[in-house]
């Protein structure tokens, strides 16, 4: 009781607690809850992945591919040729979203349409296929894991093709 009395006395910390919590909750409403409600209030069905592609997606996540590759195309000149612009209601059912924050390598939104050389050999030893590549080798992946990952990458299609 003494602690509570201390807290609720004028300037006893409760006012500060109320103010910082209140401001934060308003911010959560504006920058978190409202946009998420806005984006999830339609009935769009998420894309369904095969078991193999789902396993490949888990490898994409666990290997940290998102550190170098994005999966979003923006309406800016730098993204010309990467594929159709990513829409807010894009439904791939991904958690985490894997949209990415920065690119050290190319965007992979439509990689299945763009690259015919998406191969196990490239994943195992990128420089044997493209000597200038800076992508790390993923030689530690088993053949099954590599083919699962490729299966997932093949689902990243925008319906076009080279």
């Amino acid at each position, binding site marked *: 009781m003494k602690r509570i009395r*201390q*807290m609720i*006395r004028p300037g*006893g*910390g*409760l006012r*500060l*607690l109320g103010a*910082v919590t209140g*401001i*934060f909750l308003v*911010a*959560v409403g*504006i*920058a*978190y809850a*409202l*946009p*998420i409600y*806005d*984006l*999830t209030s339609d009935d769009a069905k*998420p894309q369904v992945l095969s078991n193999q592609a789902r396993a490949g997606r888990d490898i*994409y*996540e666990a*290997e*940290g*591919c*998102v*550190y170098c590759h994005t999966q979003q195309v*923006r*309406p800016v*000149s*730098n993204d*010309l*040729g*990467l594929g159709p612009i*990513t829409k*807010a209601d*894009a439904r791939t059912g*991904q958690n*985490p*979203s894997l*949209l990415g*924050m*920065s690119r*050290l390598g*190319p965007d992979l939104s439509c990689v299945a349409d763009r*690259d015919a*050389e998406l191969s196990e050999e*490239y994943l195992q030893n*990128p*420089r044997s296929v*493209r000597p*200038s*590549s*800076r*992508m*790390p*080798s993923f030689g530690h992946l088993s053949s099954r894991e590599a083919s699962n990952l490729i299966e997932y990458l093949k689902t990243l299609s925008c319906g076009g093709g080279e």
Partner: protein
Amino acid sequence: MLSGSSDRAARSFLFPSIVWLLLGSTALLFAEAKLVSPGLLDVKAFTYPRLAAIASVSFQFGWLTLAGLAAIYYVLPRITGAPMRGETAGVAAGIIINICVLLGITLIMFGGSQGLQWAELPTYLIAPIVFALLLVASAVFRTIGARTEGDLYVSARFFGGAAIWGPLGLAAGHLNPFRDVPDSVAHLFSVNSTLLLWFSAIGVGALLYVVPRAAGSPLYSNRLANIGFWMFAIAAPLAGASRQIFGPSPAWLQTISVAASIALLAPVVAVVVNTFATVGDGWRKLDDNPSLRFFIAGTVVWALGVGVGVLQSMRSVARAVGLSEVSTMQIWLIIFGVSLWFMGLIVFCLPRLLGKRWVGSDRLTAHLWTTLTGIAVLVGSGLASALATQSAIHGGAVAGTPISFGDGFLGASSGDRMLRLSGLAGALLIVVGQWIFLRNTMRATTSGEPRPVEVVLGDEAVA
């Protein structure tokens, strides 16, 4: 009157935090080395993404979180005139965080990355960290509630805010069921909250306590600091989506985030003005006051970090550098800025906590300049590389010959290798700097000359 023995929790955070700093810097060095020579250290546990994740987790959840807790537990009793409540809970929080970070890094090394850049750690490790931070929040508000000082010093406001915003922001990003773009919105909100509302808020609170004492003059403007606090509280949580301008998040959210980013300039100006005006014409004090030098350097680096964030939120700038390494370097600038503040706090408080003097001020100077030069070279090279790469991508896209998949964006510009080598040199300097820091701390602990342990009388620290 408080005795120095009430600083048990603050003391317990110091050494582990410095060890995480050294580990994070080393992981950053190897990650940079991978960008120069991708085939280096070609084993599963040390791929580029894993090293980058280890660096980010060590810096954020190891070094900055523990050093931030040390700042709260050291400063708060001194500005409230009340013994710090929840010392045992604080020590327990430190142990929980250390265990979670250690487990998290081990998991990342063996394929447990979460696919959440700047927020790696599985949910089952984030939940205990959030719990530990809520224990600290309880201690912070109980201490503020028991204060004997009349007016609440502005540092206590920053600590109170951080104590609530930090765990809630972290929970918002990780403990959510969302998918696709909504998950991305939650992630950006969480990254922004951790950087600004947790690390930066504690850093500013520590700065507003140490700088007046180190400079030997009162804070230039308490009112300015308070205005800065409320502007920070309002603007910082809304600025997260500015990292995804032109991305798939709602346009209205992007517009709000741009406005919030610009509004962040107000607290930055408040911090910069208060820091420099408090030192006033006492610049000669910098010569024999190493902690003040760290705080001045940290203020410049942090303000640059927030400033670059404001710039990249502008649509015209985002069009050119969005989703590039500029965003990565901007986050590192904020992390390094707050790191320099926390280093300054440790330089200030360690002798007062342990009753031992630092051994040789030239070693403290060597730590500062090695670290600062490393930061400048690493971030400068990263920004230059990002700009050159974006320019090459833009040229290719406009000419109808986009850079082909597989060649990678890295190396798209001819001078990129030199810039990468220079970034590697910067990261090496940062590691050397933190090695000096650890050695300095160990020397002070083992062979530092004795000095009286600080005794706190209300707001006056006597040592």
